[in-house]
């Protein structure tokens, strides 16, 4: 077994004397090793992992490391500017913003991944089915997916939460379902290029059950795009949940949620009290950026 050195010349097609050229793909083992090497050397991936790692740490040990009880009100010390005793200042009820930002990571890092996971599981199943069967099944499901995609996520989420009543569980279910079509579409595209490979035909020639072909044979081969899609959607989920909380339909008070904190204080910005809004906003931004950096790193690694 020999390894043809992988052409690292950017795109596959290059030009020599006016004729486009093409190099063969490297073998799968080298690709996997290379994928890890790409990740290990990817500044994007490393930076993203560090940011994400910090927030995960806060989510787990938030109550331990927070200097104050995030729920304890202290009206006398309300709206103190950031200082050495209150790094990020205090809010209208005198709660420590720094502690609330740290502890606030927990809810969003539970709700967002669970919602994304739900969407990924449903979307992957749907994508496998539509991509594998093609024909009428695909046509009908794809049109339904298109319809779903035409309506803004936040609007659908709002309507559903109004109907179901806001709670962490309903947020997870609603976001999960809203994300399903998008993920299904990505998985479907990956399945389309797998279903015509001969290992699928070989499985059919053993009269394997369709369920086995879909989930045991094809699924492991489309896991790359599924993982990338999961991380991309996770970024969106964080943002969507924060938006819903801001609108009052997500995580409910008095939880130290970031979106909720912004909602509770954004009216005070004009009065110069910027800290109860800006710090949670930065927290959301940094988490979304971190997740997206990880996602970019992963997709670069899987692209090869």
């Amino acid at each position, binding site marked *: *077994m*020999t390894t043809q050195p992988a052409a690292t010349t950017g795109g596959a097609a290059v030009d020599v004397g006016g004729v486009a050229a093409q190099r063969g793909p490297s073998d799968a083992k080298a690709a996997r090793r290379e994928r890890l090497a790409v990740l290990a050397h990817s500044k994007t991936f490393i930076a993203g992992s560090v940011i994400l790692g910090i927030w995960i740490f806060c989510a787990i040990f938030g109550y331990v490391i927070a200097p104050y009880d995030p729920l304890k009100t202290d009206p006398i010390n309300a709206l103190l500017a950031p200082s050495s005793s209150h790094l990020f200042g205090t809010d209208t009820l005198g709660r420590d913003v720094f502690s609330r930002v740290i502890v606030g990571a927990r809810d969003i890092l539970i709700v967002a991944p669970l919602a994304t996971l739900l969407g990924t599981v449903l979307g992957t199943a749907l994508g496998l089915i539509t991509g594998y069967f093609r024909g009428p099944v695909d046509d009908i499901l794809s049109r339904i997916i298109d319809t779903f995609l035409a309506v803004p996520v936040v609007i659908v989420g709002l309507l559903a939460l109004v109907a179901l009543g806001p709670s962490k569980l309903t947020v997870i279910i609603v976001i999960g379902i809203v994300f399903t079509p998008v993920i299904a579409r990505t998985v479907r595209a990956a399945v389309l290029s797998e279903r015509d490979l001969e290992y699928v035909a070989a499985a059919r020639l053993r009269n394997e059950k369709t369920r086995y072909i879909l989930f045991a*044979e094809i699924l492991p*081969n489309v896991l790359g795009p599924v993982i990338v899609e999961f991380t991309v959607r996770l970024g969106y989920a964080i943002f969507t949940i924060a938006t819903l909380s801001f609108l009052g339909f997500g995580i409910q008070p008095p939880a130290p949620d970031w979106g909720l904190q912004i909602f509770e204080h954004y009216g005070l910005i004009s009065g110069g009290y910027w800290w109860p809004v800006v710090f949670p906003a930065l927290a959301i931004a940094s988490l979304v950026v971190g997740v997206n950096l990880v996602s970019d790193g992963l997709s670069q690694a899987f692209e090869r």
Partner: protein
Amino acid sequence: MTGAAPTETSPQQETAPALELNDLEVEYRVRGIWRRVLRGVSFEIAQGESYGLVGESGCGKSTAAFAALRYLPRNGRVSGGSINLGGHDLIAMTGEEVRKLRIKTVSMVYQNPGSALNPSIKIGDQVAEVYRLMGVGDDEATERAQEMLGKVRMSDPARVMERYPHQLSGGMNQRVVIAMALASDPTLLILDEPTTGLDATVEGEVLDLVNGLRAEFGTSLLFISHNLGVIGKMCDRMGVLYAGRLVEEGRVQEVFENPRHPYTVGLLRCIPRGGVRKDQQRLDTIAGFLPGLGAELPGCVFADRCGLMKALGSEERCQGTEPPMHELGGGHGARCHFHEQAQTLPRVIEPVPAPRAASDKNAVPVLRAENVRKTFHQEGHAVHALADVEFALAPGETLGLVGESGSGKTTLARTLLGLTEADEGSVVELDGTPLASVIAKRKGEQVRALQIVFQNPDSALNRRFSIHRIIARALTTLIGLSGEPRESRLRELAHSVRFDVRLIGARPAQLSGGLKQRVAIARAFAGDPQVVVCDEPTSALDVSVQAAILNLLVELQGEKGVAYLFISHDLGVVRYVSDRIAVLYLGRLMELGGAETVFEPPQHPYTEALLSAVATAEGAERPRIRLEGEIPSAAEPPSGCVFHTRCPRYLGAICEEQEPPLEEVEPGHFMRCHIPVDELRTIQQSPPPPRPDRARSPDAAAQ
């Protein structure tokens, strides 16, 4: 073929060779270590000369071509030696100078024309772009592009200009790529496996074209191929590359007839040549594997696999001292200490044919097809991919299936297997029992009895599964084995396909192509099948591996009495393995008969043309019959005999009006032709005259 017309070049360039490599060393950096991939390669291509480079994949053929242009991937570097391109020292030049020189002097043509062309740009614009790069104005560029397309024998250049690559066939695309390559009037044209993905007839056509253009343009060729037949047809001189070292070099005829390096001897023995058949002898192979990339090889690079060294007991000399290039006169040279004895290289495989199970011609056919039809419905059109195919396969027999791509070979295989549902009225019988037309409705033992080995083991084996899981799963679903009985059956199976059980935990990507194909064969044999469809099982493999796989298939047939439906475009391979051969054209059986019968006149005019296109390592022994144009579309098959639009033996109106029936012209020999068999026998003594009515159907190339 030899002695091409010289080009009009300046006197200084006239004398310099088109390309000269001197002791070229190339390294690739893989996982942080620089590894030698070319070891002091030297050769020279004179003006107007055609030079062939052969060797197994991974020997450095393509690297040599890229290095010759100083065009290596980013992890590659030239670490020694010199490159002289048309009198210019490439190593001494700056990147920009090299780029400018490349535009003027060299072009390259690659294996896959589909990916060499931009799918979203019209053919005309792509070809014209080459002229524009050379500073020609827009209108003139378009004009010259059209002219160039005419030169590559495009039947209607003006119309082709307006098309996109996906609207043309592979052969036409490759002609477009060649047109682009020749547009800059290069002094050197590098062709890297230009016909590997193409059909035998298209390959013949493309090679004829390149030969014709070489005479016309006086271009020098560097021709890279693993197909010795193609090299024999195209080249004046050739070099044999092994592990980055040129082990033998000389005039093509000389090397073929009098090879002086054991590797060349071995390669030549691997291919089924001169009509050799499975019941006459086994094919020889080359034992072992290519050394790893950049391995330290102080002695002869081939020593590890050399049977001659072992026979002579010369390990010390062969592994310790690098043999020099022994000059044998007439430019023939070989890097072997014992080149005089090279041809006494002991065979790896004894030539005695594999024992065969006695096949009873009168037994109930194991597989019988009658009236098999398949119609695809595309955008309202009915495409008749198969029309009334019928044949019977005796137990333990091999039926070869040949025809151009688009002739319905694969559709027939998929229909028989139940992967594609046949039309109503089609009959497929296994052991005399009718089979359901879709696999899901077939019984367990019927599913087991009919299996397939696919062309490409890379996509036929699930890359996420271990070899153990792949084979074990087949044993579980096909014959319901589990636990210890399954393990022992698995070991037996691995043993019978000569697969090392120690590799059973590996993933497909960790194995070589030959080993992967053995796994695919083991999987097909898991349920003791009666019929195995082999769909181009060796065309993705190197010749030495191909020989081993063919031997294995023949041996398994002898042991288990399985019948094969063997699909291949390599006619030498089909002739080697088949007992009978069926020739398919546009989904219709044109000829069916014993393997030897089909290969000799009288034969169907289509078969005649198909065989004449084959490039063999012995040199062309029959005059080439050119099939005009592309295979017609199955959506609108020609009236009467479907082959009449391209038939070299076209009779007249009857061919256009009536479809000839498939008749038994001799015992066991069926043919679908209006010409009586005795007349065919007489007229096929000489090549066909040009068709008088050719002007009447210029549209034969229509899609």
